[in-house]
């Protein structure tokens, strides 16, 4: 017994050090797992409100760029709207109220108050949260392409797992041939993502557009991702294709969060099929 007390007294600092080190390790491993981290994230009350204050100031410096971006997007959408009207007036079919009945996705706007892109596991923070009916596993995009998936939600803020995260895995396809694979990131260059598991018979050329595939319940079909910049012709199993993002992840302004209204229904029916 005396030996034991002597041992504790001799190594008390080391034991305290080990205890704190274990807590840190637990936090690290929790952070690497999807959806586990709760408190040590930038979506908690203290850090997010501080980031919000800082963002209120720094927002002004990028106003010009953001306005330009929004103008371009508005022009694009207005053009699309005109095309749509033309086709609907030409066809002599009865109008159904498509606004409510067949709507599958709703968009809501948000702003990024904290952005990371230099690490291997990157996250963003949005200035909206559960009070604005955001939830986990919703798609985050902007006019140019995809950004990430929401992960942890607090009442007023949301943490987003960026596409620049080694855990991120998205369903993507080639626009012209519709072969699909999964999009990952190897943690090296923040402009280049890797599209893997595309079948060998698919003809891929440099410059081909890559977009989201509608097969997951998170992203709608046909949202832009990037273009093909590199094809590995060696005999690797996973057939890696380098994709350059349309988005510049180091400079993102306002974003849209997409909610899939059918998600619950789809998940339910998929779970039944599995059992």
């Amino acid at each position, binding site marked *: 017994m005396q030996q034991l007390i002597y041992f504790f007294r001799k190594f008390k600092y080391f034991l305290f*050090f080990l205890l*704190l080190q274990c807590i*840190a*390790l637990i*936090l*690290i491993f929790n*952070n690497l797992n999807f959806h586990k981290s709760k408190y040590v994230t*930038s979506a908690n009350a203290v850090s997010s409100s501080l980031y919000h204050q800082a963002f209120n100031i720094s927002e002004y410096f990028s106003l010009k760029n953001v306005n330009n971006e929004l103008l371009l997007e508005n022009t694009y959408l207005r053009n699309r709207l005109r095309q749509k009207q033309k086709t609907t007036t030409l066809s002599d079919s009865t109008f159904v109220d498509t606004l409510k009945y067949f709507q599958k996705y709703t968009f809501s706007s948000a702003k990024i108050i904290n952005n990371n892109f230099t690490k291997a596991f990157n996250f963003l923070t949005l200035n909206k949260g559960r009070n604005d009916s955001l939830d986990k596993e919703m798609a985050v995009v902007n006019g140019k392409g995809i950004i990430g998936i929401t992960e942890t939600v607090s009442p007023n803020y949301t943490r987003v797992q960026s596409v620049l995260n*080694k855990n991120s895995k998205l369903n993507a396809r080639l626009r012209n041939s519709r072969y699909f694979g999964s999009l990952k990131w190897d943690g090296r260059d923040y402009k280049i993502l890797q599209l893997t598991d595309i079948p060998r018979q698919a003809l891929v050329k440099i410059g081909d557009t890559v977009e989201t595939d509608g097969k997951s319940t998170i992203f709608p079909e046909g949202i832009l991702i990037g273009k093909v910049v590199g094809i590995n012709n060696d005999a690797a199993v996973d057939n890696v294709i380098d994709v350059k993002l349309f988005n510049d992840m180091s400079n993102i302004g306002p974003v849209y969060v997409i909610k899939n209204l059918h998600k619950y229904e789809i998940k339910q029916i998929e779970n039944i099929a599995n059992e």
Partner: protein
Amino acid sequence: MSKTIYFALLFLFIVLLQVLVLNNVLFLGYVNPYLYIIFLFLFPLKKDRFRFLFIAFLLGLSIDVFSDSGGIHAFSTLTIAYFRLFFVKVFFSKYEVDYPFFDLSLEPFGKKFNYVATLTLIHHFILFSFANFSFNNFSQVLLNTLYSSIFTLVLYFPVVYIFSKKQ
């Protein structure tokens, strides 16, 4: 101003400086200084180390909360906090009786540089290894460690000159 309040304010200031300014430097696209570890060098040496270890852990954890990195800053900061006394013994040959009189700013520059550079390199190496979390980009980890350490050290000496002025 009493010592405790001074270090509490210094703690807050260093966390804010790191989170709001230094994390956004991104020199050449990715090199960041991690200057918050100067707190560990400025904190006085004491025989009772529980408080120091706990403060070091809190410092790392507060940086982690803001940079969404789980606990990697807490882990690496705690490691150098634990080994600080060992390196004080190695570089300055100071023992427990010397702790109350020890003042880093009065030590010769060569010894001071060795001490600070060693702890900074250890800290950054652990930090980037955990941030990468695989053996794949190991050369990238080493390069990051080197560049960031140089950046931190270049900033360290002017900044510490400002803080070590007697109030």
